[in-house]
Structures are given as structure tokens and as C-alpha cells.
């Protein structure tokens, strides 16, 4: 594979992963902002809960990122092999999520969770092969 092609393939893989991380972190931030959905459902019913989720700005932008991620994934698969792109994107997304959760969501990512994240990233890559 030529150098420009390698850059193109890995650039698309990183871009898809970044969109997935942004989407998941924004959705998680939106859900944390709303609080336990069971409590909201007890107070406002199912329709009120769905309305609360769909009108949350962070959730909305996160869902938009996930939709863009879907189309970016289609593009990535058109220039990279599935056997490379699928595990690489999944693994990078898991590691990126852990880093972003620590930085932006201020989650306590202790040694146990880092280890779990690394195991998942490697495990997904092994299963996909």
C-alpha cells in the first residue's frame, strides 16, 4: 500500500472513530444531565420521557454525530478493507471513549476500567479477525 493511500485509509478510520466518540460522549453527557430515566418516567410517563430525551441539546447533537458516523463508516468501508476497518474503528472507539469519558465527563476511570477498556479493544480486534 502506498503512503498516501495508507494516510487516506487511517485518516478515514480515525475520523469515523472520532465521530463515534463524540456521539457517545455527548449522548452520555445528555443522559447524565437528565438523570435517571426511570424517575422521569414515574413523574411524566413514557411520552414525557421520550420528549425530555429528544429535546435535550447534547443528546440531539450526539445522535446527529452517530448518524454522520454511519455515513462516514460507509465511506471508510469503500476505501478500506472490512477486516481492517471494522476492528480498528471499534477498538479506537473504545479507547477514545475511555479517554473522553475521563476528560469531558469527569468519570473516575480507575485501573480496573482502563484494563477493561484495553481488554475490550484487543478482544474486539481478535474476534473480528
Amino acid at each position, binding site marked *: 500500500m502506498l503512503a498516501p493511500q495508507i494516510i487516506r485509509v487511517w485518516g478515514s478510520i480515525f475520523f469515523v472513530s472520532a465521530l463515534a466518540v463524540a456521539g*457517545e*460522549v455527548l*449522548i*452520555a453527557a445528555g*443522559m*447524565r444531565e*437528565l*438523570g*435517571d*430515566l*426511570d424517575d422521569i418516567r414515574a413523574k411524566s410517563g413514557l411520552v414525557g420521557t421520550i420528549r425530555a*430525551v429528544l429535546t435535550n441539546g447534547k*443528546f440531539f447533537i450526539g445522535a446527529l454525530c452517530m448518524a454522520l458516523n454511519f455515513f462516514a463508516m460507509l465511506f471508510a468501508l469503500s476505501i478500506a478493507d472490512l477486516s481492517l476497518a471494522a476492528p480498528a474503528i471499534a477498538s479506537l472507539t*473504545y479507547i477514545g*471513549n*475511555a479517554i473522553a*469519558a*475521563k476528560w469531558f*465527563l*469527569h*468519570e*473516575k*476511570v*480507575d485501573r*480496573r*476500567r482502563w*484494563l*477493561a*477498556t484495553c*481488554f*475490550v479493544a*484487543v*478482544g*474486539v*480486534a*481478535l*474476534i*473480528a*479477525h
Partner: protein
Amino acid sequence: MKHTLKPSQYAVLIAIMLTASVGDSLLSRGMGQVGQVDLHHLGLLWHALFNPFVDAGIVLLIGFFACYTTALSWADLTFVMPATAFGYVVIALLGRFWLHEQLSPTRWAGILLIVCAVGFVAGGPSRTEHHELDTMDSGVGR
């Protein structure tokens, strides 16, 4: 306070593991029956909506998204993540024991790693304590 999960919340996590993997498998089987979709045959996408496997797959994936967002309302992203990854294990085990596919040692190693990851995270707290948020949740300071 250590955030422990209620049985209903464990049920949501199990639903996340099952709905994503089974939904993807149903979509894959349905699209296999519909045929290859490309720019010249986009009409097949409409046709796909009338395939029962595709319909069941879409319903399960909507269910996955509902369960996933619900879980994120009471648990950390880094706690829920391994549960989503467990779907890969479910797919591999379905392939092995339902479709009688052969799993290579590499895939078994992958399954073992993800199972260990779920075990690590499940043994810890489900949510990071954020003092301000917890104060708001408990109603103190309102």
C-alpha cells in the same frame, strides 16, 4: 456511597448485550435475502423494509438504542461500554453453537478478553460520584 444496580438495571444491561447482536444478525440475514444494494439498485432498500428479518432487526436495534440511553442515565459510559462489546461474544457464540461455525483460537482469545473486561467492570461501582449532581439528585440544596 457505592452505586450498585437494581435487578431491573441488570436486565437493561443484558438487553443491551442481546438486542444489538441479535438485531445485527437478523439485519445481516435479511439483507442477504434482499440482495446487494448499490447506487443503481437503491429501490432494493424499500424492498428490504418488507423483509421480516430486516423488520425484526430494526425493532431490536431501536430497542438497543432505548436500553443504551436508559443505561447511560444511571451509569458511566465506561461502565456500559463493555456491555455493548459483549454483543461480539454473543454473535461469536451464536455462530459456534447455533450455526455450528468453527471458532479459531484467536477468536476464543478475543471472547475470553471481553468476558474478563465485563467481569472487571461489573465488580466496580456503576457511576462516578459527582458531588454537585448527587446533591441535586437527592434534592438537597433546592
